């Protein structure tokens, strides 16, 4: 499969994420394809979450964090002067490891983004459409004004996905979205991801290799090298179609990892 034939939403050139003086992950080059699912896998400390959070500039909130190299979103350097990070985050939504629902009703959770950005059209319609796309509508349609914390973990995570969808994103970043869910709830999220990939580009960080195989089109494998002083430095080992990476990895480190020899 030729990667050049694809429309790219993100292009990373020589990207490093640095916290203070420590480079958590260095020299990453990869392209995220439109309307596909891209998985980031690798052992703890390999920097996959740092790279994910560099895409929507969420590390801007971390004092001392800095991104080097070029992260471009649809041709624009997202770290260039004059780029509005808040605008970027509307286009590039995020789903977190633990469902971080807001302390308000189901409706208000979904309506937060459209209200914030003063999006046009009927708010009710927008909330309904987002909940439908997140496969949650049928379960909550009669309880829209109930406290969102009363939903189950899997429902909360679908609510967080609906919250992203309500502001018409282009890309959805998912940081281990099933880490806190049981297998049945996980399966529902995975089905949902595959459905959503028809309209959205998805990047998912996962510790679950089987999940990467089940849902993703492309996989990036990161690893961590240990320096003498014990600090970890992440790097990208290999980026290929999921099929190729798991069946015919080019790098022996990738093969050892997917065969379960470390990590």
């Amino acid at each position, binding site marked *: 499969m030729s990667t050049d034939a694809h429309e790219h939403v993100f292009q990373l050139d020589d990207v490093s994420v640095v916290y203070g003086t420590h480079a958590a992950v260095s020299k990453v080059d990869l392209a995220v394809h439109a309307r596909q699912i891209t998985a980031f896998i690798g052992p703890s400390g390999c920097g996959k979450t740092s790279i994910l959070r560099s895409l*929507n500039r*969420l590390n801007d909130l971390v*004092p001392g964090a800095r991104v080097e190299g070029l992260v471009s979103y649809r041709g624009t350097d997202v770290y260039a002067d004059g780029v509005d990070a*808040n605008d970027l985050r509307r286009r590039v939504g995020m789903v*977190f*490891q633990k469902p*971080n629902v807001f302390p308000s009703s189901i409706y208000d959770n979904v309506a937060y983004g459209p209200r*914030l950005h003063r999006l046009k059209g009927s708010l009710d319609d927008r909330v309904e459409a987002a909940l439908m796309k997140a496969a949650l509508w049928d379960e909550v349609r009669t309880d829209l004004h109930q406290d969102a914390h009363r939903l189950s973990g899997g429902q909360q995570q679908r609510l967080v996905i609906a*919250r992203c969808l309500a502001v018409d994103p282009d890309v959805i970043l998912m940081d281990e979205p099933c880490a806190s869910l049981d297998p049945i709830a996980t399966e529902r999220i995975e089905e949902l991801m595959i459905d959503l990939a028809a309209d959205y580009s998805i990047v998912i960080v996962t510790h679950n290799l089987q999940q990467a195989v089940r849902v993703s089109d492309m996989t990036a494998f990161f690893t961590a090298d240990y320096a003498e002083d014990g600090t970890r430095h992440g790097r990208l080992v290999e980026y290929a179609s999921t099929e190729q990476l798991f069946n015919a990895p080019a790098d022996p480190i990738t093969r050892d990892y997917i065969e379960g020899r470390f990590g």
Partner: protein
Amino acid sequence: MNEQAVRTGIALLLLLGVALGVMTYGGLGYRREMAVAALRALVQLVAVALVIAWIFSHPQWAFAYLALMLVVAAYTSNRRIGGDARDRMAILLAILLGASATVAIVSVTGALEFSAQTLLPFAAQMIGGAMTAASLAGVRLRDDVKDQFTVFEGYVALGATARQAGREFAQRAAERSLFPTLDQTKSAGLVTLPGAFVGMLLGGASPLLAAQIQLLVLIGLMLAQTITALITTRTISPVSA
């Protein structure tokens, strides 16, 4: 030195001496700190009394005194919160608005006479109370955001600025900062006799007048602190830079 001052001095020495003696007897530490604190209080109160006495005879300087107090309050509160220069300016405005709204009402209604003698101590108390509210509300806001950082990130990830995301935490932080005043107001006269009331009785005022003034102070604090807490939590940065 008049006779009253001498008698006060003797009483103070006795009070402190007996306190230190009891501490020694009980094996309590902090005797040195206690003595230093007493000395500091003496120096500070005499100094402030001299300054205020001077201002009463030069009332045009009352505003300068209050302005200085306001700046010191903003610095103190901002240091507690750990904010930057921009946060300090936000806190200064919050305290200024809270205190001036209160002073405006009590002077326009004529509840307090428009003079340095009445408005200076009243405004000073409002600034002090507003400062406490700003500190509590700001510290609370930042603690809440830190405790629930993933929820905070949820707002930011949808395109909210840090301040917009902080606003979702502002209400609770502002409410919490009002609890001490709420408790103080509820218990006034029952569990405690508040400062202004006691002071006026000691100064020879009638109990009813003392109660009136104390009410102006207590309810005034409610207003000043509410305004200050609301503005503080909505304008300072919810995360430290």
